[in-house]
């Protein structure tokens, strides 16, 4: 057990709350029952950490094992910074029947071809998702395990979720991913956020959606009014608004997004104002919506009547297209028709 492994172990233990630490170490499976028992209820944390390191030395554990415990915790608690979604395109038929073993071998081989010093770990979580942890090094340095890149991917789907990736390593990772999963290229899905399950649910359409149907079910058990003589004159309107909100952003808990960004590029048009009309450069503006739960807030906008229905495609595109970054370009000189165009 070298200094680097020790540093990673210390960092990891610091990150894990005391209440969860024993569970994580138990699932890790590198310590014996007696060793785990000796660590139990040891306070403060630094003391526990010191003891843990000596136990690891005793068991002759290396960086490989320490990285595993970090990965274990990360998979179960993936709230570490921003996650970015990417989408692979142009599949061959092979991707539909790809197996984990096959994917693992190919991914490791491709990435190791591209870069020499790299440490890769691949694990399948209970919900069928495949997690990849990559510690990057270069020609002169050993892999830096303190700042690993995490990748989450569901086999047979084109979506990849990445966190902690630098621009330098982006092309390497993407090439290896695309080759291993049997696609021809990868593109930015323009979706990011802190909650990876929300991103996944949004792109894989796994959140509770409401669709128009010939026999619509009531959305909520309408709470019976205390006085039967009081009649809600706007009951129908309220129901309609709730349905519109649910159809746009999902029923009950919508995926937890923190922000939506709209970049505007518009041109100024008014007769007699040549200095502004003649500009080649468009006016640029950025509109950002931020909230602890953006879709819930937008839903409230509809139900409370702040936003009119039918909803503007600018907002409903967040769920329909599964993205939260848009560039709106002013196309053509005639009409100021704002169109939702993809960003390049």
């Amino acid at each position, binding site marked *: 057990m070298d200094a680097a492994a020790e540093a990673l172990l210390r960092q990891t233990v610091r990150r894990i709350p005391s209440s969860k630490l024993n569970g994580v170490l138990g699932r890790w499976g590198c310590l014996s029952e007696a060793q785990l028992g000796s660590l139990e209820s040891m306070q403060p944390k630094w003391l526990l950490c010191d003891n843990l390191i000596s136990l690891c030395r005793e068991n002759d554990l290396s960086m490989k094992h320490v990285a595993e415990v970090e990965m274990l915790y990360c998979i179960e608690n993936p709230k570490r910074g921003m996650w970015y979604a990417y989408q692979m395109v142009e*599949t061959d038929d092979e991707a*539909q*029947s790809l197996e*984990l073993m096959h994917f693992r071998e190919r991914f490791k081989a491709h990435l190791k071809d591209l870069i020499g010093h790299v440490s890769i770990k691949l694990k399948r979580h209970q919900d*069928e998702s495949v997690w990849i942890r990559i510690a990057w090094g270069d020609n002169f340095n050993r892999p830096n395990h303190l700042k690993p890149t995490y990748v989450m991917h*569901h086999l047979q*789907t084109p*979506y990849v979720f990445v966190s902690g990736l630098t621009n330098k390593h982006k092309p390497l990772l993407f090439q290896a991913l695309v080759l291993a999963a049997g696609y021809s290229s990868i593109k930015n899905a323009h979706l990011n956020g802190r909650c990876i399950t929300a991103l996944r649910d949004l792109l894989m359409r796994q959140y509770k959606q409401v669709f*128009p*149907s010939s026999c619509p079910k009531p959305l909520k058990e309408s709470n019976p009014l205390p006085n039967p003589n009081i009649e809600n004159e706007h009951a129908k309107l309220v129901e309609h608004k709730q349905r519109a909100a649910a159809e746009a952003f999902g029923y009950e808990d919508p995926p937890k997004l923190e922000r939506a960004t709209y970049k505007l590029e518009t041109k100024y048009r008014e007769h007699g104002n040549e200095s502004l009309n003649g500009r080649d450069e468009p006016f640029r503006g950025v509109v950002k919506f931020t909230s602890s739960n953006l879709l819930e807030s937008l839903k409230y906008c509809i139900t409370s009547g702040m936003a009119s229905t039918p909803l503007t495609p600018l907002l409903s595109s967040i769920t329909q297209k599964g993205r939260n970054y848009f560039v709106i370009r002013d196309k053509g000189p005639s009409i100021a028709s704002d169109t939702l165009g993809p960003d390049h």
Partner: protein
Amino acid sequence: MEEARAFLKEGVLRHLSMLEEESVLLATRQKEALQQQTRVEELRSKLEKLRAQRDQLRAKVKTTVSLQQLTSVVDQENVEPQEESREESLQLFQLKARLTQVKDLLRAHHLIGGYDVVETRRGKGVCFSLATAFEGRYLETYNLEVDLARTIRICRHNVPPFIPLEKLAQQNLQEDIKAFLVTLSQHLNAFAGRQEQVRLVKELLQGSVLVMETNSLYSIVVLMCTVPGQKETEVLLTLEYGDPTQYLPTRVTFESEDKTLLESPQWKESQSLLQQTPVHTALLAWKKERRIC
């Protein structure tokens, strides 16, 4: 009385003035109460009036609506004979009849497990709902909202991401939406069927057959069962579903340490059996025959 005496000690005048104060207070309170009552009554009568007005307005709206309908019907009846081309109106009626017929057919289709269609956004779009079922049991319903404004475009759906929806849409969404829906429904039904089979194996053969591995499309399922004998041997069954529109495997392989066991004609036969019957029924039959523990 004692109080009065105490007051008397302080002086009669003071006592009187106090009494006066109290009486004034009482009088004002009474007045207030009276005012409140009258206010309540006023409000009540107002409420009654408003209610009556509301009912009147409602009745008015109803009558105007029915009147409009009547007039439109009358107008049509009046106009029709004046129109020179009776054929046109005949065509219209035929089309209307056809529409009701098609709607009835759709409803019947939905009732027997087909897809349902609902008009959305004032006729600019439709929403298809495709129900899936396996062995007479309804499973998940998937929805597909389609925009018809310019070209046919899928704008919202809850089809799982591993179903190749885009590829199917490219093939024949524009030309033949019916064929598109049929193939999509086949894919979804086969997927739901494979998923249900694995669920049934887990439920019905708990403890005897282990589900070792599946993928999200359920196109590869690996099961492990134990063959009884002098020495219990474990057999690994790998079912590969090569055709995504089928719920039966296209390839079945067995793996075991005991090679002679797999050479027996019984196992060779079971390979083809698994390709013809759902896996849970086959395994249940084997369990009854005590071929597996």
